């Protein structure tokens, strides 16, 4: 007796056949994948201050990043792979910042993290980046990297730090403006870097700090702090951040009413604010530190001009599409330069994937002189691999006829200070 096998199609059989069919049909797709791990994009996690008190910076850091990535991709990407930015909002909040870093490492699977500005967010996020072994390139200005409080995975190769800015400014302040200085600074990490660096720097020049006035960065009304400025102050050193900066500078003018001390400010006090805003006329003749000059200077290099055009900013530092939309020009070049350092580091390390993260950090640590170029439009830089901090030229501008005119540019040597840490001694 023979048993006839039924020749009908069962549901299970159909599914099996279908799965096989899909696998066969998709063969070319994953065949491409296996040999072309290198064609997948390099993913850079961008920790962006889209909301919170850093939102104005975050928006322009975003635009500078976009422009840099476009340039890098037009030039063939990194190691022949396109660059893709994965932006996440951290709300300018340290706790959220650490969560964003975790998201980058575990969910988005990015190659490196990048782009944080506000120092409390950096200080809140960097330990997590170190634990997750995610290279973390900050664009913050804080001295927290070079001070040694962070870790081997955190680097700041695209923007100089407060301590080097302050020590290179101090001789100019005491020589040309006055020796009795009162300082106003934001009451958090970045402000403390100013507070800690300025005193010794001014005293080294034979000057003194009369009073240190800390103001919370979320403050909206400032007149009430100004009576603490001593009457014999010769120079008022001011640096503020946050949404109230225009009110701060305006109320400063109303308080002094054209009398008052000389003013030396960090452009942070006016980032994203037009210098010809109503009520700021009194700034005429005062001085500002600028990382990169907001208003185009007659002696700008071709690279600086090309950078200005690429980020879509006019010669007064406002968006080409809207003259009222003023950029954070003094800082945002840091994103552009950092991305180019990441590119150079990945190419030197032959970076292929997350397994090469340590090699990438070693490659960046090995960098020294970075000549002025389209990758470094702000000027030449010198990277210190031991402290993970870059050093560069600083600018002092004077307000003349509603324009910021550069009157002094420091050398890189003016900004150097002894190492406070050697990160290369730390294990990966």
């Amino acid at each position, binding site marked *: 007796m023979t048993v006839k096998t039924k020749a009908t199609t069962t549901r299970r059989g159909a599914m099996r056949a279908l799965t096989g069919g899909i696998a066969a049909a998709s063969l070319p797709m994953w065949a491409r994948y296996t040999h072309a791990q290198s064609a997948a994009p390099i993913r850079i996690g961008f920790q962006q201050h889209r909301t919170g008190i850093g939102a*104005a910076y975050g*928006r322009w850091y975003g635009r500078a990043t976009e422009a840099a990535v476009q340039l890098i991709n037009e030039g063939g990407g990194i190691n022949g792979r396109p660059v893709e930015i994965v932006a996440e909002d951290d709300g300018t909040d340290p706790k959220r910042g650490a969560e964003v870093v975790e998201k980058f490492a575990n969910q988005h699977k990015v190659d490196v993290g990048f782009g944080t500005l506000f120092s409390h967010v950096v200080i809140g996020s960097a330990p997590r980046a170190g634990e997750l072994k995610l290279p973390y390139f900050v664009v913050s200005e804080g001295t927290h990297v070079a001070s040694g409080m962070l870790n081997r995975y955190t680097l700041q190769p695209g923007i100089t730090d407060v301590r080097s800015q302050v020590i290179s400014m101090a001789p100019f302040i005491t020589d040309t403006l006055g020796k009795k200085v009162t300082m106003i600074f934001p009451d958090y990490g970045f402000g403390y870097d100013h507070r800690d660096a300025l005193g010794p720097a001014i005293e080294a020049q034979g000057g003194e700090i009369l009073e240190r006035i800390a103001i*919370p960065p979320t403050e*909206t*009304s400032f007149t009430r702090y100004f009576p603490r400025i001593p009457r014999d102050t010769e120079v008022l050193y001011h640096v503020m951040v946050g*949404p*109230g900066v225009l009110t701060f500078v305006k109320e400063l003018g109303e308080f002094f009413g054209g009398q008052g001390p000389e003013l030396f400010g960090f452009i942070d006090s006016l980032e994203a*604010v037009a210098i010809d805003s109503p009520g700021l006329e009194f700034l005429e003749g005062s001085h500002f530190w600028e990382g990169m000059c907001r208003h185009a200077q007659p002696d700008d290099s071709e690279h600086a001009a090309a950078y200005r055009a690429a980020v879509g900013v006019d010669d007064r530092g406002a968006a080409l599409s809207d003259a009222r939309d003023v950029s954070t020009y003094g800082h945002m070049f840091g994103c552009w330069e950092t991305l180019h350092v990441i590119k150079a580091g990945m190419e030197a390390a032959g970076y292929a994937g997350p397994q090469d993260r340590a090699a990438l950090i070693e490659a960046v640590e090995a960098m020294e002189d970075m000549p002025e170029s389209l990758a470094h439009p702000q000027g030449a830089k010198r990277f210190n691999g031991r402290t993970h901090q870059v050093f560069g030229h600083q600018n002092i501008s004077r307000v003349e006829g509603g324009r910021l005119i550069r009157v002094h540019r420091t050398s890189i040597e003016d900004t150097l200070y002894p190492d406070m840490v050697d990160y290369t001694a730390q294990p990966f």
Partner: protein
Amino acid sequence: MEFGPHLVLALIEGAVTAAVLALTASGLSLVFGVMRVVNIAHGEFFMLGAVIAWWVTQSIGGHPGWGFAAAMVAAPLMVGALAVAADLTVLRRLSYDPERTIVATIGLLYIIQQLTLMTYGPEARPVVAPFDARIALPWPERGAEGWQIGWPWGLSTTAWKLAVIGAAAAMVGALWLFMARTRAGLVLRATQADREMATAFGIPVERVYALTFGLGAGLAALAAVLIVPIRQAHYLMGGDPLLLSFVVVIIGGLGSLPGTLLAAVLIGLSDGIISVFFSPTLAKIVATLMVALVLVFRPQGLFGTRAP
């Protein structure tokens, strides 16, 4: 700075805070008094007022006074209309349930704030005051030749700050007249006193609620238009006024206009004086402490009446 000029400066700064606070908080107090709705989005209506003022003054050329006058009219009307719409579409559907309206207005807060961020942007933008002369204040000083009038460094205010104090006082006065002397005010007070009885007497309570919510938001917007030439329009600016308005309204007694006024002056001046002589943080601590003390010893507030 010497004590005398320092104190004068503190009083002027405090008076500006108090004036704006009185206007903002009376909006919050009105909404709570009549509707029993705790409006967490009140600070965002304040912020919207400032943002609309910026937008209106930008669109109207000529002398800044014209743009500002237009903003004084347009901002409260537009914000009020938005609040009426929010009342009709959200609060009414929740039957003005106290707990659910709190959650709903929290949602409203985030929606307004984030929409402003998406459209207006993260920058703080300035509005030009119609007039803004700096006024240096004289102070008697004892010099070599006896008493003299001097002009101490830093002792100054601006014409606009004085105008803000005057305008806010006038508007709060007008609000009081409206509540006490007009038929509409009578209807509002009747609804506040007893909703069911008001309904029985033919008062269209739901329409009254919608208009009250609009009026409360409009007052916040008006306060913001006054202050925006001093502090720029920014999408996060609603936080502080909301907190201080609650402080004022709790101390003064929820729903009581005179209590709100007195508490606003108290908080504004103490904020000015404490923050000038000690620190702004201490001023916030003292204000919060006052709220705690009032809640412990006089839960209905200084002028409030106990719930029947």
